[in-house]
């Protein structure tokens, strides 16, 4: 959406963008500065698109929904992992620093491969409902579910796999195979779901180690940065208690 600039004095914004294309043999990481006039209601989606259209067609970044729901546009914005599409420039000073999310494989500039990381995590943690029966008859009325429980499951299902929690996590930076708050939250979600046949014994197999819930140092870098405000703090603490109980069971 182009905003027709109204004849008012708009700020000059300076975007300091960490640029690096690992596919180019001779490239080195550097910060490039772009100047842009602010427009009313300008988001980082609008700003970066304008930079690419007018100033630098080679700049790489990812946007899909531009509405804060798909999780594509996580990046470090003034040092904090956030969704770029729903960050409005008005809430920042004139100098805005942008860098790719750490931990994830860098594709180029602000674009990182969260998709590959999330798929790996999903395969490892088997983040799908493990059905209780082989055959289901979908012509029959569905199994009832407690409405409040359905809402609770939905709450945890709201994760958009943006990777902000992983980027904000000290353990994830040190330990390559750590499943992150996103992974622990998924286990909490399937654990809560009565349709999933797995027991705590099964979940313990998946997250009962240092790459799982016992690797978490409870520093809660994740909780504060989650753009969907998932209750990561309580979920991780709860899961840890359950896994400790399961572990001591033998």
């Amino acid at each position, binding site marked *: 959406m182009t905003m027709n600039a109204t004849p008012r004095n708009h700020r000059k914004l300076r975007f300091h963008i960490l640029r690096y294309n690992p596919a180019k043999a001779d490239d080195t990481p550097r910060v490039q500065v772009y100047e842009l006039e602010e427009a009313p209601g300008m988001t980082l989606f609008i700003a970066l698109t304008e930079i690419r259209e007018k100033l630098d067609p080679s700049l790489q970044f990812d946007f*899909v929904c*531009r509405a804060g729901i798909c999780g594509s546009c996580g990046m470090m914005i003034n040092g904090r992992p956030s969704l770029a599409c729903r960050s409005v420039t008005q809430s920042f000073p004139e100098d805005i620093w942008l860098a790719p999310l750490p931990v994830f494989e860098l594709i180029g500039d602000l674009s990182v491969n969260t998709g590959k990381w999330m798929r790996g995590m999903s395969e490892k943690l088997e983040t799908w409902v493990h059905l209780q029966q082989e055959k289901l008859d979908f012509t029959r*009325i569905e199994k009832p579910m407690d409405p409040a429980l359905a809402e609770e499951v939905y709450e945890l299902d709201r994760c958009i796999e943006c990777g902000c929690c992983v980027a904000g996590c000290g353990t994830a930076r040190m330990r390559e195979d750590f499943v992150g708050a996103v992974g622990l939250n998924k286990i909490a979600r399937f654990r809560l779901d009565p*349709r999933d046949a797995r027991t705590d014994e099964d979940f313990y197999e998946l997250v009962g180690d240092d790459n799982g819930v016992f690797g978490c140092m409870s520093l809660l870098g994740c909780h504060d940065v989650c753009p969907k405000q998932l209750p990561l703090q309580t979920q991780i603490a709860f899961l840890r208690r359950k896994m400790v109980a399961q572990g001591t069971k033998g």
Partner: protein
Amino acid sequence: MKIVHTDVLVIGGGLAGLRLAIGAKRRGHDAIILSLVPAKRSHSKAAQGGMQASLGNVAKGQGDNEDVHFEDTVRGSDWGADQEVVRMFVNTAPKAVRELAAWGVPWSRVRKGDRTVIINGQKVTITERDEAQGLVAQRDFGGTKKWRTCYAADGTGHAMINAVADQAIADSIPVHERMEALALIHDGNRCYGAVVRDLVSGELSAYVATATAVCTGGAGRVYRTTTNAVICEGIGHALALETGVSALGNMEAIQFHPTGIFPAGILVTEGCRGDGGLLKDVDGHRFMPDYEPEKKELASRDVVSRRMEEHIKKGKGHQSRFGTHLWLDITLLGEKHIHTNLREVWDICHYFLGVDPVKEMIPVRPAQHYTMGGVRTDASGQSATLKGLFSAGEASCWDMHGFNRLGGNSVAETVVAGMIVGESVADYCDAIANAPTVPMGLVREFVEREQAKLAAFTKAGGKEDASVIKGEMQDLMTAKVGIFRTGADLEEAVDKLQKLLVRSRSIGLRSPTLGANPELVTAYRVQRMLKVALTVAYGACVRTESRGAHFRQDYPQRNDAEWLKRTLATWKGDADTLPTLAYEALDVGRMELPPGWRGYGAKDYIDHPDTPARQSAVEAIRAQHAGDRFATQAALMPYEHLLPEYLRGRNERIDERFADGDRPAAATTGQ
């Protein structure tokens, strides 16, 4: 040259592509999914409001069934839909919701007892039945007689794609992310896969497959103001078009959603109005009842969008610094409802408008929303003209939406079509197992052709800027091929789009490299988008009537006598600047629901000469089988033979319990 072999190549990792791949894989065929982005980020994620299926669990859905869903959908389509396909769809939708429930979608559930809802601006108490406790709940949506839209709070598409994508992972179906199909490989009769570009490395490869399915979603980005994601550029439509053989159906049928936030175009769900939200004008007056006394805010989308623009033309819009808009008022729903059932709406208003919808009204104006047209297929989902090419979801013209699709019918279509077409693809693979092998020379030729096209962009000489051309196209489409259309505007649009297409053939790049290069991507896509835009504009220009979302001010009547037919567009030659149009008549004599008044919108239309005879034949059949809706339906328009066997059979409801023993056969699926 890198070649990847698979049984089934699914282009698109949205709900349709994922569900189709799962179906084919479970029948024993290898499937690979290609996607521009990680599957869960496909635009299916954005669906907020819900999925239609006639479960009839809630009190306001009592009496709902396939027949009612069928009629709503056909009326919604303004009789443009293929009625057999609509029947296949409505019979499968309840099974799809129930399958998704088993796969983990946290559908919102019914609470028994009293609850207060807002209907027509008034508080009303509804009592939910004890038997419904814990079953999947339904909400009200535009254009439906019953409350039929199943939902997971206001993140329905999100929850659906989470579950379906996770099932695809469980089934070990690879998703090749950041991969873009550039061309279909074919010999004019059969499709053999696609030429694919790796968006990270720029490398081209050939994906050779027995069956290829285009599940690439919508084409909203050919417009300036759209609710669609930035990747909804209609490249899948162009893939089919550029074969020169497979056709796009009804591309002029473009839906505009009443409530895009102004000016960004981000959608706030129809659930806002379904749950009781009102549209208001500059004076704070609720204007929809003035135009549509019956359905008011909940007439079908094409009607509401038109009424809104009509009201703005009367000077009743609110002037803001970005232009004119109307208001959506959901304050009357209350804080609790908004924070639990419409939270994504709250988020959007908060982050993108700085508005608190609990207290303030939301600035809205209609925005492009849905592409009814698409790759024309038969009822099994296969192209009639290019064997081995299938399509499902928004990219297809299967054709269950005709000239206007109902809210909630689209995510339902993605999954239902995925279930059905997945079986057709598997049948095709089974049948063709012994067919002659793929002509590798042809594969090489296609890859080299795409390579040469890309190389041409990087050579010096091109003067045109790809993003400028794209911008001009989008402005043109929004200004001239929008909600209100006229012959003069459309002719101008067609003329200018043709010029843009010619200009796009001399695009030059400022950063001329073949690797990861966003400018190169814009360049090759805009050429394809222009062809898609031209099929929309030209189709609209030639269709001299109004039907569903296609509204011609100079031809305001629906004209069944001349236009009860589907537009088929093909692109014959590379040098062409216009598609070739042909038409496929809809057979009134076979319709279960002969054309009539929709129940909302304009009442005057020109009848098809066959309509009165069919109408009396239908009435006679109805009288003959009165009291038995299944027998009536079977006599009017048999369709069950078109469904895969496991999807035949009735659907159980609270009010239509299966007696022990009379459980229909089939209808079980493995996990």
